[in-house]
Structures are given as C-alpha cells and as structure tokens.
C-alpha cells in the first residue's frame, strides 16, 4: 500500500514537470479551469431565466447538481482523461509494453500516468457552488445527509473510472479510440442537468446504460434529504459491479494484446 502511495507521488511529480514544459498551455489551462466553471453556469441561467421550476427542480437545487457535476468533471479532466488518452497512444505506438513490464499493477500505473493539475481547481470550485446553492436555499444538511452524499459521490467516481477503463479496453481492438473518450465526455455532459429533465429514451439511457442520474442527481437529492434509501444501495452495489466488470474486461483485453511494435 505504502509502495503504491510512493508510486503515486512519483507519477504526480513527473506529470507536473511534463506539464510545465509547455508554458502557454500550462497557464492558459489555469485560467480555463475557472472559465469552465462559469461556462457551465450559462445554460443553467438561460434556462431558468424564464422558469421558476423545471421538472420539479428550482434554480438553486439544479445548481447543486451543477456543483457535483463540476467536481466530477474536474476529476475526470485532471486525473482520468489525460491518463487514458496517453494509454491509447501507447497502445498504438507499442510503448505500452514498457508499462506492462513494470512490477506494479498495470491498471494502477495506467490510471496515474498523467495528471492535469489546473483542472483539479474545478473540484473546490464545484464544492463552493454547492455551498452557495445550499445557502440560497437556506438548507443546512444534517451530518447523515452529507455522509450519504459523499458516499454517493465516491461511488460516482468509481463508476467513472470503470466506464473509462472499459472504453480504453476497446482501444486494444479498434486502435483509434482517442475520440471514443471524447464521445464519452460529451455524453457525460448531460450529467450537469437533473436526470428528471430527460424523458423517454434519454431517461432510460442515463438511468440504466450510463448511470448519469446516480452520479450527480443522487448525491444532490441526498443533500436535500429527498433521496429514496434504496437508491443508495443501488448506487453502491452498481458501482462495485461496474468496477469488477471493468477489471475483468481490462484483464481480458490485456490477455489478447500482442503489442504493436513486434
């Protein structure tokens, strides 16, 4: 365990050095992380400019969902996406072999290979948004509500990581998968809205296929104290299942990987 923490530290230092190489990118990224937060608010403001409530959600309540979305997006863009993008490239170039040869868990090494530090700023930004929204509502959540909400957030992170690993596993078969990750990013975008806004096919998609509703709507409902207890168990169990399944897919993918170079 300690060894993995040390490994994590080394990987973090490495990607900081790498990122500082490209200075314009580095500073623009810093500015942008706050820009995206504001950017996320615009459609929300535009839609609620004309309505008190949409699909049973008031502006402040929807703002909480947005806050959770920002937290997850920050993690996604800072930790998950950069790593997985580099894996896809390594699969294509054949340099993944050097990673697989290392004496540590391949899934761990790959998930930590690159971090984008600035985008991490979105995480506290999202938490601030949630705090502001709760203040606006005049609602102080109980400790139990906060804990349940945090648990749901954690399982949302597990969901994200698992889904992403499955996408990357696809890279072993179809090679050009870099845009498959951006396809997923664009679908994930729907998570900024409370899932109740979506009807019909969208609702089914975001509830069962890609459980966006569990990722951002459920933790918000937990904070507001109107979450059905069964949802908690579905979310925790579902994320565990997803994690196991993604590990299985990853191992299966590795087993049939024959490298690109040889």
């Amino acid at each position, binding site marked *: 365990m300690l060894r993995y923490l040390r490994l994590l530290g080394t990987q973090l230092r490495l990607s900081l050095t790498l990122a500082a190489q490209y200075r314009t*990118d580095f500073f623009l*990224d810093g500015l942008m992380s706050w820009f995206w937060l504001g950017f996320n608010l615009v459609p929300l403001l535009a839609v609620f400019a004309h309505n008190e409530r949409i699909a049973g959600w008031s502006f402040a309540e929807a703002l909480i969902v947005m806050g959770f979305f920002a937290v997850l997006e920050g993690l996604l863009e800072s930790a998950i996406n950069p790593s997985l993008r580099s894996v896809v490239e390594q699969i294509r170039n054949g340099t993944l072999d050097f990673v697989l040869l290392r004496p540590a868990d391949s899934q761990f090494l790959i998930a930590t290979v690159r971090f984008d530090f600035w985008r991490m700023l979105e995480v506290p930004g999202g938490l601030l948004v949630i705090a502001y929204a709760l203040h606006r509502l005049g609602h102080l959540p109980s400790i139990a509500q906060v804990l349940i909400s945090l648990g749901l957030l954690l399982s949302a992170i597990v969901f994200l990581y698992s889904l992403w690993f499955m996408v990357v596993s696809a890279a072993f078969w179809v090679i050009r998968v870099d845009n498959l990750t951006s*396809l997923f990013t664009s679908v994930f975008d*729907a998570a900024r809205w409370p899932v109740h806004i*979506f009807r019909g096919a969208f609702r089914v998609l975001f509830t069962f296929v890609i459980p966006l509703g569990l990722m951002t709507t459920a933790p918000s409902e937990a904070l507001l104290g109107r979450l059905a207890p069964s949802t908690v168990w579905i979310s925790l169990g579902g994320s565990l299942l997803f994690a196991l399944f993604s590990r299985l897919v990853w191992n299966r993918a590795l087993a049939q990987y024959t490298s690109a170079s040889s």
Partner: protein
Amino acid sequence: MTPWQERRRAYLAMLRVEFANATHYRATFLVFALQSTMPLIMLAVWWAATEDGPIRGMGPGDFAAYYLASLAVRQITASWLVWGMNGEIRGGGVMMRLMRPVHPFLAYSAESLAQMPLRLLAALPPMIFALLWLGSAHFTRDPLLLGLFLVSLAGAWLCEFAILVTIGTLGLLVESSIAIYQVWLGVHALLSGYLIPLTMIPEELRGAVALLPFRYLLSFPIEVLLGSLSRGEALRNLGVQWAYAAGFLGVALAVWRAGLRRYQAYGG
C-alpha cells in the same frame, strides 16, 4: 500546361488522397459525428422548460427545428484540424508539407473539403428527421433564402477553417496550440448559438454578441434556414460574413508567415 492547370491538377489529386483517407478512417468519422450530442441534450432541457408555454416566442417545435438544424450545420462546418496541425508541428511532420510546392493551407483545405461527402451524409439524418417529424413549416420555403442558406453555409465553413488554421499555426509560435483551441471551443459554443439560441441570451448582452463574428459561424446559417431573416437582412448579413471570412484568411496567412520565421523544427 499552364501553372494554373498544374495547380488544379495538384489540388484534385490532394482531394482524391484525402477522400481515400477520410473513408479509410470512417469509424473515427462516425464517432466524431456522434460526438455532437450537446444540441440534443440542450433540446431535452428546453423541452422541459417550455412545458408551461413558449419562451420568447419559441415553443417545443421551434427549439427542435433550431437544434436539429444546428446539428446538421455543425456536421458541415466543424473540423478537428487543430489536433492534426498541433501534432505535425510538434513532431516535425510539418516539414514534409513545407517541402511541397503548394501552400500548406491548400493541403489543409483539401483535407477538409474531401470530407464533405461524408459530412453531408452525417448531416442528412437530423435534417430528414426534422422534416419528417416537424414538417416543413418550421423551415423557409423561399428558394432565394434556401440558396442564400447554402452560401452562408460555405461562408461559415470558410470562417471556421480560417480561424482553426490560425489557431493551428499559433503552434509555430508557442509550444502547443491545444489550450488555445480549447478556449476557442468554449467561447464559440457560448456565443455562436451552439449551446443556447442567441435569442435566449439576455437582452443587455445581445447587442454585443451581434457585433462579434461568432454568430456568423453557426447561428446565422440556421436563422436563414428557419426563415427568421428577411431577404434583405440575409443578404446584408451574408456580406458581413464573407468580409469576416476574407479578414480571417488574411490574418491566417500573416500568422503563418510570422510563425515560419520563428519555427525551429523538431525531429529533423
């Protein structure tokens, strides 16, 4: 052969090569086409918002027509040129382009234009779906406006191409142009009408947004197609759009010249 004939032959050859390239990576292409889910998500959101009645004169059908048209227009005009240019400049691959006796911009334009048949194919489903489902009532039936729509589409493509090629060229001056590109994507989504129709932008900001060039990249062609502009307005805006296009192309060429002077190749 006159030099012009030679150039035409070279350009046609480039188009053929790039078309083969585009069809070869058709799976990639499909994923890119599917990626623009944002309009559909925003459409779902506006539907939920219009349950109590239309907003600023726009009902569910109007929003559907707007976002489906936006989906189709983006298939034609959007491009991922910057990723390729950034990679080429950083990896030294751009040297190959510099050696050839045609301006690299022409090669990039051939790449984008050769994708047009596939792009049109991708633009068809949302349009057919819109016509079948909403009927033609939401779209203009004036043949002149339909013609102007096609011209405005070409103008939007040209503006977008010139801007993207400029951003890509900035990679010659700074280490990497991807961050700049992402800023551009964000601002574009907000101000071009991609995220929200420009009529939904607060009154106080609308004047400022109308002055900026973003509207001509997406919202303007849609407005023409939906018949929200009169013939005169459409023509006047078309003039502005093409003036912008010429200006952007001039800037692109100037940046390219400045960039080459500074460029030190990697990889050799």
